[in-house]
C-alpha cells in the first residue's frame, strides 16, 4: 500500500486547544493541565484512507503563535492546515479571519483548510454559534467541524475529512526538485587509495 506523508500545520490563538486536538488524535488521551508550550516538535500518526496510508506529520506552533512569530518554514510544504478556535470565546473566532489571511499569504496555494470549533463539550457557555462558523467555513471552502478534544468528539472525523480532500498523488507536482534530510551517518563512500 502506498504511504504518503502529509504535513499538517495547526493555527489559532493560544489556549484554544490546538495541542489537545493533536494529543487526542495521536495518543488518544487528554490532559486538562496540558502545558501551554507542550514542546512537541513533531507528532505523527498513520491512518488508512482507501488504498493509501496517510502518515500525518503534525506541526504544533510551539507557542510561536503568541506573538505572531510563526516562520514561513512552519507553513512550507503543508498539505493541510487546521485552524482552531474556542466555541466559548468569541474573540478566538474573530481572529480566525486573520489566521486564514496569514495562511493565504504564507501557505502553499492549494492547501486544504479545516476549521475546528473546539471545546464543544462546553455547550452551556458557548459564545460562537455553529451556523455562523459553518457559513464562514463554506465561504472559504474550508472543512468545518466542532470538536471536543476532551470528549473525543469529531477528532478522527476531522482527519478523515482532510484525507478525503487531499488531491490524489498524481496531481502533485513532480518531486524531482526535492531535497533530502541530513543524516548522522550518510553513505560514506570511502575512496580506495589507488
Amino acid at each position, binding site marked *: 500500500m502506498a504511504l504518503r506523508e502529509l504535513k499538517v500545520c495547526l493555527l489559532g490563538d493560544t489556549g484554544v486547544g490546538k495541542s489537545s486536538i493533536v494529543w487526542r488524535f*495521536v*495518543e488518544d488521551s487528554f490532559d486538562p493541565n496540558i502545558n501551554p508550550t507542550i514542546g512537541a*516538535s513533531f507528532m505523527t500518526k498513520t491512518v488508512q484512507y482507501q488504498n493509501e496510508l496517510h502518515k500525518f506529520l503534525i506541526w504544533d506552533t510551539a*507557542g510561536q503563535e503568541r506573538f*505572531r512569530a510563526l516562520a514561513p518554514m512552519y507553513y512550507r510544504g503543508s498539505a493541510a492546515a487546521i485552524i482552531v478556535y474556542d466555541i466559548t470565546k468569541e474573540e478566538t473566532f474573530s481572529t480566525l479571519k486573520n489566521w486564514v489571511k496569514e495562511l493565504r499569504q504564507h501557505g502553499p496555494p492549494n492547501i486544504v483548510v479545516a476549521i475546528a470549533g473546539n471545546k464543544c463539550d462546553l455547550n452551556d457557555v458557548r459564545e460562537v454559534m455553529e451556523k455562523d462558523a459553518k457559513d464562514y467555513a463554506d465561504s472559504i471552502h474550508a472543512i468545518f467541524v466542532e470538536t471536543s478534544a476532551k470528549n473525543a468528539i469529531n477528532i478522527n472525523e476531522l482527519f478523515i475529512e482532510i484525507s478525503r480532500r487531499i488531491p490524489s498523488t498524481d496531481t502533485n507536482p513532480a518531486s524531482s526538485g526535492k531535497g533530502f534530510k*541530513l543524516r548522522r551517518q550518510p553513505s560514506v563512500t570511502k575512496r580506495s587509495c589507488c
Partner: protein
Amino acid sequence: SHSAADLLLLGGHRECILSGIMSVNGKKVLHMDRNSYYGGESASITPLEDLYKRFNLPGTPPESMGRGRDWNVDLIPKFLMANGQLVKMLLYTEVTRYLDFKVIEGSFVYKGGKIYKVPSTEAEALASSLMGLFEKRRFRKFLVYVANFDENDPRTFEGVDPKKTTMRDVYKKFDLGQDVIDFTGHALALYRTDDYLDQPCQETINRIKLYSESLARYGKSPYLYPLYGLGELPQGFARLSAIYGGTYMLNKPIEEIVIENGKVVGVKSEGEVARCKQLICDPSYVSDRVTKVGQVIRVICILSHPIKNTNDANSCQIIIPQNQVNRKSGAVSPLSRFVSISDLFAPTDPGTESQIFISRTYDATTHFETTCDDIKDIYKRMMGSEFDFEEMKRKKNDIYGEEEQQ
C-alpha cells in the same frame, strides 16, 4: 511585569542558533527582532518584489521571473560544508528534521578567463585539464599526504612541523607550481588572501582535510544548501528554542539597552522594559560597543542561463583567486544585479563585565565555519567554559506518535 529572562537575544542568524542551544540547556530565553522576518542581515528575502524594494531598484521584476513568492534570495550567500561545524550543530540539535537540503553540483575555479572544475580527489586531479601531467602527479602526492595527516600523530608529519613550517614550504616540499598553489589555497582551503602562505601549515592542512571529507560525504561538491534558502536555518533553530520554552517576538523596535552599574539589566521596546541577566546581539543593535574592522562588497545577480563550462550545473560555486580578480570575465550576463557594500564590525570588548555579548558581522567567507567559530566564542565568553557540541543535544523526547523512519 514578567520575571527576568536569563538570556535576551536581539536579531540575527547566530542569535537564533544560540537561543536554541541555551533553551535546550534550560535557560529562560527571550528573543526579539526589529524585523518582521527571521535571520536579520543574513535573511532570505521573499517575495522577489521585496528584494527590488530593498535595493531601491526601479519598477517590478519582469514577468519572465514568475511568481515573486517562489523566490528566496539570500542577502549573505554562503554554503554549508557537508562535514563542517554547522552541519554538526544541525545534527546534534536535530534541527535537520525541519530542513531539506541539496548538494551543490560543483565547485569551480576561475583561471585566465576560463572556468575549471576544482580537482580535489586523486581521480579528479588526474583527469583535470588545469595541470600538466607531472604537476598532476605531484598534486596527487600532496593530496595523499593531506588525507593521511593527523595533527595528533607525528608519524604522519613527514618532517613537517605543523606549528612551525609555513604552508609555502609545504608547497615547496611537494614542488607545486603557482597555479596549483592558487586553487589549493583559494578553492580547497578557501582563503580569501595569500597571507596564509607564510603562516604555520596546520590550519591550512586541516582546511583542505575538511574540504576533502565534506566532498566524500555526498560526492559532487563539499557544499550543502537548504532547499528554500539560508533563511531556513534561523527559522529552524528558532523553532528548537520555542519547543524548549523560548519566546519569540518579531517586529519589536528596540529603543534602549538598559544598563545599571555597568551591567545590562534589560531592553526597552515600545516603552516597556524586558528584563534580562545576559544579552546577546548583533552589532547593529549596539553601535557604541563595536568597531569597524573591514568592508565587504556583495553582488547578487539573477542569471537567465547556466554559466559556461560548468556542465549546465543548477548550482555551483566559482572561486576567483585573488590574483585573477582584475581580469575581464564576461562569463555571465545577469538579468538583474543587486549590489551592497557592508561595513564589518567586531565587539570592542568581550562583554564579561557588561554581560552584553556581541557577535561579529558576517564576513566574506563562502561557508559557515567562521560563523560557527563566532558562536563558540560567544558561548565561551558568556558561559566561561569551552563550547561542547554535546551540550546541544535535546534533553527530552519531543517526538510523539510513531517512530520516525530513518
